[in-house]
């Protein structure tokens, strides 16, 4: 039976909803806060900011992370910036515009009320971070500087060099550290959540593995918050960190939390192309490069052929023989179209044979025009560290002068190609960020709520911090208000026993397969299937084929896996095996959702549903809903429920970045 999902959106006009909610929600009195425990899993932007804020409010917080320090969470790798509707540039920006751009960028598949709230609190985030000592870029007058980003016509992105994510995370980490020092947050590093414990239908604790000793430990609390990021590593090669995994989220899904929109996977257009089969991860080149770089492939197919064979160099190709295909197709936004549009356009060119790498899977990102216009010094000031990073990896320095044709100077271009970057889908949450399991909350990339089918650049940082600093600390109180009567929940309860035993049995099972294949070799294979059949361009046929292959590979995993070592002590391979087990579940879930969504929108592109020009064709009549999946057992198709979307403030229309 498909459930009816109540998103608990407050009544009233969209701009008033959050104010109304805050004015009428239940609060927890200070005395009771001292009695209430909250577990926060993860220390990225969302997790660290939530733990810090909850601790500061007076709750007792237990915070876990898998790395050796909260500062290592992968939020740290975000380069470009964070959006806010401050309108410091006097360019007509407003909360409404940021809201509108985000909904439009998300291809009208986001929940309106959530996005409006996000846009509303975006300004507080900037204030908060500046007060923490985050060194945002500034102008000579001492005011904060902004840059523009894909999908927007205003400059609303705040940045700290090419390391905005790092600075914001360190800001949240410092607040968290302050609370650890105050004794309000207990921090557990190198701990991984393996299961959520449900008592009387409510999330009451977790089972976590101490990664150093290998022991399973129990934590109980009045509410559990997961902030464990996305599932991009299902594809093996992605811009995610090596440790990123979806084990916590998938385990919640198995225990009854619904998973929403898993097929919305973001492919980032500006990554360094794959170079070999030993590669472990893909490196992102900040989207901000698209401000000054122009993306092109050769106009003539024979030039592309020669480039692929290495017979000519890009700088030998004259201006008139270059196809700046984004500027050609989307004159209004040009190189700054949203990520999904830019990625698909690159794939389209490469599929037609115009790709430029030896693999034919790359396009150029060229700075010649900007360098000629602004001078190399200005460009180096803006992107110097990115150029150096690119050189370290590829041995090519994008600022090097290479050729001069008819008096025009050409510099060595970068080569880029799309790669898996972010997952818009995630655990389903209502307006309060609560999942379908009472007492279990999901924040940050881990939930699905704010980006719809596609996320705009510089919005992930905004969402993570909005959830952690400004949304969850309020909404969780509405839940906790009547929970103080429960007191401490004993970890000796049978539910904890059962959960721990189940986790332990899984560890034993994985260790006892004693087959021949390493975790990585299987993971790579899964990644290939995902990229091939559930990647940028999907078809019903391909998805079915992909599901079949995943099923077979999962069998191979269950029968022929080899994990060295024992349960005791640190065992990296065992931890990776657990992650892979859950990537299998996740991969299939993505495919099921992609198969059921017979339309193209945002990060989900079905080749059957496109216009003659190759643009995505949405079907608002039939698919204007959030697809929510309920776990039905291993290898069994999950069950789909729908949360219909209702738009009041925005008129749903076809996305247009052409004019």
């Amino acid at each position, binding site marked *: 039976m498909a459930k009816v999902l109540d998103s608990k959106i407050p009544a009233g006009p969209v701009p008033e909803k959050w104010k109304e909610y805050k004015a009428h929600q239940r609060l927890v009195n200070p005395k009771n806060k001292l009695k209430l425990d909250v577990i926060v899993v993860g220390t990225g932007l969302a997790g660290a900011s939530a733990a810090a804020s909850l601790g500061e409010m007076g709750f007792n917080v237990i915070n876990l992370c898998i790395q*050796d320090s909260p500062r290592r969470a992968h939020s*740290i*790798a975000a380069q470009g910036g964070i959006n806010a509707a401050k309108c410091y540039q006097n360019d007509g920006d407003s909360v409404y515009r940021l809201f509108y751009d985000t909904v439009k960028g998300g291809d009208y598949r986001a929940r309106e009320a959530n996005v409006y709230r996000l846009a509303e609190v975006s300004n507080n985030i900037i204030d908060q971070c500046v007060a923490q000592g985050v060194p945002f870029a500034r102008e000579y007058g001492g005011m904060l500087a902004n840059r523009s980003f894909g999908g927007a016509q205003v400059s609303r992105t705040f940045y700290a060099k090419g390391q905005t994510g790092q*600075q914001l995370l360190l800001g949240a980490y410092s607040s968290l550290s*302050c609370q650890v020092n105050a004794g309000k947050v207990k921090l557990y590093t190198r701990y991984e959540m393996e299961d959520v414990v449900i008592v009387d239908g409510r999330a009451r604790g977790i089972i976590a593995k101490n990664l150093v000793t290998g022991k399973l430990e129990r934590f109980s609390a009045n509410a559990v918050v997961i902030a464990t990021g996305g599932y991009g590593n299902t594809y093996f090669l992605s811009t995610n960190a090596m440790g990123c995994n979806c084990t916590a989220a998938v385990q919640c899904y198995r225990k009854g939390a619904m998973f929403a929109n898993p097929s919305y996977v973001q492919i980032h257009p500006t990554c360094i192309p794959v170079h070999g089969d030993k590669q*472990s991860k893909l490196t992102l080149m900040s989207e901000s490069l698209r401000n000054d770089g122009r993306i092109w492939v050769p106009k003539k197919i024979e030039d592309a052929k020669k480039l692929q064979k290495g017979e000519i160099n890009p700088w030998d190709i004259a201006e008139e023989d270059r196809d700046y295909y984004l500027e050609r197709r989307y004159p209004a936004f040009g190189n700054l179209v949203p990520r999904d549009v830019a990625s698909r356009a690159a794939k389209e060119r490469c599929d037609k044979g115009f790709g430029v790498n030896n693999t034919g899977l790359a396009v150029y990102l060229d700075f010649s025009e900007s360098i000629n216009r602004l001078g190399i010094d200005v460009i180096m000031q803006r992107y110097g560290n990115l150029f150096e990073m690119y050189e370290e990896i590829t041995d090519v320095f994008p600022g090097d002068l290479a050729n001069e044709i008819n008096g025009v100077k050409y510099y060595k271009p970068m080569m880029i190609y799309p790669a898996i970057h972010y997952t818009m889908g995630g655990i389903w949450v209502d307006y309060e960020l609560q999942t379908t399991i009472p007492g279990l909350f999901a924040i940050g990339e881990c939930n699905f709520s704010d980006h719809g089918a596609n996320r705009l650049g510089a919005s992930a940082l905004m969402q993570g911090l909005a959830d952690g*600093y400004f949304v969850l600390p309020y909404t969780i109180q509405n839940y906790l208000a009547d929970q103080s009567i429960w007191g401490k929940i004993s970890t000796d309860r049978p539910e904890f026993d059962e959960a721990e035993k189940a986790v332990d049995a899984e560890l034993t099972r994985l260790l006892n397969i004693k087959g021949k294949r390493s975790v990585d070799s299987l993971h790579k294979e899964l990644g290939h299937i995902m990229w091939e059949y559930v990647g940028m361009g999907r078809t019903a046929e391909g998805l079915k084929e992909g599901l079949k292959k995943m099923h077979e590979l999962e069998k191979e995993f269950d029968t022929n896996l080899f994990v060295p*070592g024992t349960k005791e002590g640190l065992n990296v391979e065992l931890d990776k095996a657990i992650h892979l087990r859950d990537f299998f579940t996740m991969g299939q879930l993505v495919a099921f959702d992609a198969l059921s969504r017979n339309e193209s929108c945002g990060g989900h592109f079905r080749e059957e549903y496109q216009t003659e020009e190759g643009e995505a064709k949405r079907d608002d009549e039939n698919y204007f809903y959030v697809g929510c999946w309920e776990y039905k057992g291993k290898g069994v198709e999950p069950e789909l429920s729908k949360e219909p979307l209702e738009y009041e403030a925005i008129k749903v229309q076809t996305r247009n970045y052409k004019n």
Partner: protein
Amino acid sequence: MAKNISFTIKFWRQNGPKDAGHFDTHEMHDIPDDTSFLEMLDILNEELINEGKEPFVFDHDCREGICGMCSLYINGTPHGLTERGATTCQLYMRRFNDGDVITVEPWRSAAFPVIKDCMVDRNAFDKIIQAGGYTTIRTGQAQDANAILIPKEDADEAMDCASCIGCGACVAACKNGSAMLFVSSKVSQLALLPQGRVEAARRVKNMIAKMDELGFGNCTNTRACEAVCPKNETIANIARLNREMIKAKMAD
């Protein structure tokens, strides 16, 4: 064009902080030189696992030089030798030659006990930050971000100080096992910004006290730290830290 190289890798094995530890060696064949150092170690591990051995344990995560997790001491230099400073994950095999012997060791410092092989415990850094590496503000109560103007030069310099990734290479390279570059980077960042000045004296005293308590050594200005810092932090930060500390103590 990528070429392939073969070499011997000599890597540190240590089962826990109390174990004496030893080196294992392994021959690596035909590794493309556009492979990153950590990808090369992935290949090593794949080979070890296929031989039924336990993989070589090392810390790594983002593999793009920002998380600060990777921490290998390669051929006598933390993170390996590059001209402009890079983390281990940004080191590529083209920096090595056919026939080399590559020695991989953990950070060796009393404050960073070995967990396993080349994975060390850098919890001490967190403890130092917890002692005062923040501004004590309440969520949601901050004034408008442009209310206090900050000169661009100050903001830029604070940004440079804030770039520290907490990898611990400075401690690993220092003959005194001193954490001054790490501590000074955080103290400097906050000392340069008006938002951080309010608690400057309290912060520097607490952080230094914690650093001493955790058993880090005394700075003797050898500058080994800044020579290996992947984010090019400079000892100008240490001078500022000293200044802040003396100022704070004088005012007591």
